[in-house]
């Protein structure tokens, strides 16, 4: 079974050299730490920055320079800032190659819910609806089951949707799964030490298992 860092490391393997990537809050943010050395990957922060650098050294924080999670960050040589309309313009126009975000639920046809729990949590969707509606490649980083032990990979989402038919791949502490064009979670890889049976038990949506399922190489 993977911890959060393990999930981030596995997702980092999906990132290609020479691409623009938007990382959501939580586990996706950790992915930045595991992008292979020598790769030229430009991180987009939807509050208006391309070329997000690491956190500043203590004492060097700039209140005017934050990421979409409102964290203090730095720029890199070649970074550029722009306004929020241009930021979502480049997202909508599919200039950003890959979006990695968290989710509360994903359905077997690629629907995602991650912004609202009716009567309980009202935080808002931020930029997530724009990102999932336009991104060509969306990877979800999440736990396979919720705190109550219920599967988050469902036949249909029960929470208000963020987007429909959009998720292509999911990485959890148990597995890597892709979502097939006609629906269904196709099991691609198992986390180290996790059996196919355990993944089956934790997946409530349609799980497709073909042949031997390899263990992740992290």
């Amino acid at each position, binding site marked *: 079974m993977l911890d959060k860092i393990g999930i981030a490391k596995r997702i980092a393997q999906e990132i290609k050299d020479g691409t623009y990537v938007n990382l959501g809050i939580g586990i996706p943010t950790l992915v930045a730490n595991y992008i292979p050395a020598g790769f030229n990957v430009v991180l987009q922060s939807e509050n208006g920055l391309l070329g997000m650098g690491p956190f500043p050294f203590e004492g060097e924080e700039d209140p005017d320079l934050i990421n979409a999670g*409102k964290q*203090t960050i730095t*720029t890199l040589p070649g970074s550029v800032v722009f306004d929020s309309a241009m930021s979502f313009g480049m997202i909508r126009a599919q200039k950003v190659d890959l979006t990695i975000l968290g989710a509360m639920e994903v359905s077997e046809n690629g629907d995602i819910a991650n912004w609202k729990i009716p009567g309980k949590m*009202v935080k808002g969707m931020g*930029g997530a609806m724009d990102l999932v509606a336009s991104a060509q490649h969306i990877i979800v980083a999440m736990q396979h089951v919720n705190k109550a032990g219920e599967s988050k990979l469902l036949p249909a989402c029960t929470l208000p*949707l963020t987007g429909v038919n959009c998720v292509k791949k999911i990485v959890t502490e148990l597995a890597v799964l892709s979502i097939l064009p006609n629906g269904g979670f196709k099991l691609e890889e198992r986390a180290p030490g996790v059996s196919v049976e355990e993944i089956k038990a934790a997946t409530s949506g349609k799980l497709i298992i073909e042949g031997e399922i390899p263990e992740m190489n992290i």
Partner: protein
Amino acid sequence: MINKTVSSAEVAIADIKDGMTVLFGGFGLCGIPENCIAALVKQGTKNLTCISNNAGVDDFGIGLMLHQKQVKKMISSYVGENAIFEQQLLSGELEVELIPQGTLATRCLAAGYGMPAIFTPAGVGTEVAEGKETRVFKGKEYLLEMAFEADFALVKAWKGDTAGNLIFRSTSRNFNPIMAMAGKITIAEVEELVEPGVLDPDQIHTPGIYVHRIFQGKNYEKRIENRTTRSK
């Protein structure tokens, strides 16, 4: 050049009246019009509809106005950091309309570009789409979203000149330039107010034609919401 200078935040916002709709620049607490918010709190204007990406925190930004119960309705994309907000929402004192961040930005842009509406795929198939006109282009569905109509826009810039031309700094730019374009009356507060000719015309982000009043801001706190650092 037309001189847009006013003497203070209090003078600039004096004609913002109860029940008006106001755009607020900023992302989180980054680049918010601190002086204008403080003046609105002092003036006590009520029943405002506030369009702002976020709702501040409990004791800063728009949170200060929520505390005084000055806000009737918030139109935002993310309001997660504010306990007063959640409390007023659940008690029914406050109305909220949550909209996708890109939709929020582009509705500002449409207003500033003189376009009545835009089409966006954000929110298709979700509750955001309820009651909205849709249209299919090249096999993909889009929502019709209207340009904002706001009485005032309050923005914060790094530098500005008395003609209203503005330059923003780093990611405090965010919603500020597009909201500046979207207000019927736009008020800009700046860290440094200069005479016309000082700013390089090639470097100006917001042309002064969009700005009706400008003033030299003071006592900027620039609070950091989420201070993250690494060790040397």
